[in-house]
């Protein structure tokens, strides 16, 4: 499935856990620090310098190189999403992105927010930074560079970023929970055999 931002509620609600996809269009990188700053500003009623509505948020701290006046992405794989577990539900509620790209999955709060506000979590192979960079056509801008290169918000133009897998859908299902249940059963058996 080829997804292109801006995404509609209908677009994402048709996706199911396990579906393969690529993503094109505008996406914004955001890690812990950017999440915190965005939430702080929004709670104080200040507008963000970028618009996340119907866009994709990418849990990623890229390596970016100065390229003349602009920037070039050298490597840009996903970072561990669970670090944003406590921040993401409110983040989704306030800014209404339609897709979150990351690795490792997220907890119940985010799964709930995805269901409520129409957002999906797309798993991208961790560390696959060069494959990712091939799916990034350019850097449209950068915000909050004072947070440092990895933590800044990079505004990326995606061109079939992927392969992505729908790992949390709008039905409250998470592939990580499905796997987790099987793992728990296996581990119980393994430990009994010790």
């Amino acid at each position, binding site marked *: 499935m080829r997804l292109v931002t801006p995404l509609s509620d209908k677009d994402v609600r048709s996706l199911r856990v396990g579906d393969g996809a690529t993503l094109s269009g505008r996406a914004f990188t955001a890690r812990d620090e950017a999440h915190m700053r965005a939430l702080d500003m929004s709670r104080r009623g200040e507008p963000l310098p970028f618009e996340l509505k119907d866009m994709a948020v990418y849990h990623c701290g890229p*390596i970016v*190189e100065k390229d003349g006046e602009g920037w070039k992405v050298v490597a840009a794989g996903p970072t561990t999403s669970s670090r944003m577990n406590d921040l993401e539900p409110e983040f989704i509620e306030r800014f209404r992105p339609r897709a979150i790209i990351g690795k490792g*999955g997220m907890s119940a709060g985010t799964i709930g927010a995805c269901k409520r506000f129409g957002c999906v979590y797309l798993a991208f192979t961790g560390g696959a*930074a060069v494959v990712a960079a091939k799916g990034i056509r350019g850097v449209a801008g950068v915000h909050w560079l004072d947070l440092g*290169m990895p933590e800044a918000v990079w505004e990326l133009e995606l061109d079939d970023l992927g392969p992505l897998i729908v790992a949390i859908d709008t039905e409250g299902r998470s*592939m990580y929970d499905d*796997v987790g249940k099987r793992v728990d059963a296996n*581990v119980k058996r393994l430990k009994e055999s010790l």
Partner: protein
Amino acid sequence: MDRAELVEETVVRLMRTAVTTLPEDVIAGLHKALQLETEEVARVQLRTIIDNVEKAESADVPMCQDTGVPIFFVSGECSHEIEEGIMNGVARATKEIPLRPNVVDPISRHNTGTNIGAGMPNIHYEQAKGDFVEITFMPKGAGSENMSVLRMLNPTSGTKGIKETVIDAVVSAGGRPCPPSIVGVGIGGTADSAMLLAKKAIIRPLGRSSDDPDVAKLERELKEMLNATGIGPMGLGGRTTTLGVMIEKADCHTASLPVAVNIQCWAARRASARIYPDDRVRFRTEGFQ
């Protein structure tokens, strides 16, 4: 070229090699994992990883954006020149390759921008192995390092306790350290040395088991168990959670049983060099032993 400059050149090359190419044994491990997986989601993850490794090598760019914090093992010399050469090498490699500047103050979170800071790079000095200086570089990403576990077990817990500790560490890490991973285990010593043993363990090439037959057996059993958990590549399910379990041990207090787990992601980057007395330098990614 003076000593510090020679070390600097060596370090820059070590770092470039390590972050852009995976050692042969790790590549072979990933291909083997792909053969073992039947589920499409798991296969997609492994194919993407292998494709990514090939692309990084041919484009001469870092295979993962998290180029980690710089960790060095140095044997044969502990001197100001080594220290200076490593510092300058790290700063230069960070700019030239480029690497992501990851090193920050732990409290203020201020990023130095150079990957150099207090206690960073992390340099471990070891005993000489011959008439040469050996430098091993291993970048360590946070995704895997954050999953580290130390347990001070009751000695009566024995192998069962050791196995439980490793299984618990890998299961609670799930997909976060980018599996299939290499699991380093340090058994014995003291709290600090157990963790260092675990870290040294992940430098050992895949396929080379412990010289101690009992430890080698434990490595095999643990690998089998971890792969039976079903966590799979990226935690999305599958048969290959780990490419290998490496155990290092040291003797310990009669009343202790420290067990440390240090996980390395599929991007198990490492490179070693030997500097000989005549300034000749030899490079290897699979280690020298």
